[in-house]
């Protein structure tokens, strides 16, 4: 399900399945995109932040056009205890690899991988990023 911001429109509530993973996309070229994500985060139930939220930063290939500071992104990941992924949508290889990563995360969050819970996976990702 794609949405431009949260909260989701209530008229579609009855059509929506269970949400297992929320990926917030931040375009590094747009400060507005970061603001939008920050505003939307306020509408997310706290239980999602136990491994069911991740931040996906796009546009990282174009270093010249960075409008968003990396510090703000790292801080966001820390404050909301969620992993931060980076990708460049314009390159097919990276796009496909990122999609596969997200799909893997989704399988874990949906409970399809026995023995691995969303929370354990989330803390695994955070610990490896902290070193």
């Amino acid at each position, binding site marked *: *399900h*794609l*949405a*431009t*911001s949260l909260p*989701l*429109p209530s*008229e*579609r509530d009855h059509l929506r399945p269970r949400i297992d993973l929320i990926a917030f996309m931040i375009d590094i070229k747009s400060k*507005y995109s970061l603001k939008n994500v920050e505003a939307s985060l306020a509408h997310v139930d706290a239980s999602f932040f136990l491994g069911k939220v991740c931040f996906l930063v796009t546009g990282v290939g174009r270093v010249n056009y960075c409008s968003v500071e990396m510090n703000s992104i790292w801080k966001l990941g820390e404050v909301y205890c969620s992993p931060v992924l980076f990708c460049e949508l314009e390159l097919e290889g990276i796009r496909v690899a990122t999609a596969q990563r997200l799909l893997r995360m989704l399988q874990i969050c949906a409970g399809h991988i026995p023995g691995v819970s969303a929370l354990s996976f989330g803390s695994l990702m955070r610990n490896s990023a902290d070193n």
Partner: protein
Amino acid sequence: MDVTVAEYIRRTVLKIPRDEIKTMLQKWGFLSETQLQTVNFHQIKENISQDVVQLCEENSADIKQAAVLDIIYNHIYPNKRVWSVYQMNKTGEETEFFDLTDFKKKFKRQLRSALKNVTINFREYEDNAVWIRIAWGTPYTKPNQYKTSYVVYHSQTPYVFISVSVLKSNLPLLCQALVVASNYHDIREMELRSHSLNSLKDIVFKRYSQNFQTYYPRPLQERNVAPESGDLRIIQENRNEKERIQRVNQEVFGDGPQPKLEFAQYKLETMFKSDPKMGVLDEKEPFRCLVKFSSPHLLESLKSLAPAGMADAPLSPLLTCIPQKARNYFKIREKKGFFPGSFVSP
């Protein structure tokens, strides 16, 4: 042949893209077909221009013919210049028959009576467009062929498109000559400027696709069906909002391509509204500020702002009124009286 004329022709030919040189010379018609056959149009432009000058030498070209070549070049590449739009007014309802010869005679006479050193050339095109090329001199110097102004006058309309170039001081003279020659009363500058002459014509002649105000803001049933292209597994949560934006955009901008403008400029002469405690600008003077929007294609980029998620729909009427009001330079002043806010000066 005059050395300055030769140089002028050479420089004009150098401006033309190599593949177009032959066609343009044929349009010019000054050199015969046999003469043109002798030129190798595949060599470098520097050499082509030399050959052309040589041929013009044989035909003893003078400044009048050279000027015609310049008009042809500018007619095919008008977007290299900046054009302003002027509107002439008549008092009374006399619909006079437009006499081209009379117009040309009066124009030349009026201009020359004020300034003797000018080169004036006319060329008529389809759709009643008269192109006038003026090279300006001073009372003491010959006309400078590189300091030219162009006028495009559509005789069945009150509109004149002027590209002044450097010497703005000659503009009042030019305007007066136009008014006298065309039997109008006066002329005023519309605040509308662009590189694209055709787009300016589209705007003033209302040739672009306009939005028609519908009484009922609901979309027609047929229009609402947007094809679900792409993967059916992707569900757009904000589809209603996206459709609303498309609908509003279409109402405002219409369906067709927008006229091409490069700038919109808003000169603000409004009072600075701040927290009274901040005490900024205690003297109640208008805060002077200039806001300029620039883009290779301003109206198309405004049209794509809301669908791209970068602005809310509908856009500010200050932006969307540009084609209807036929202006892209605005002065915004304080609205006096009942309602606070700002209004756009006529």
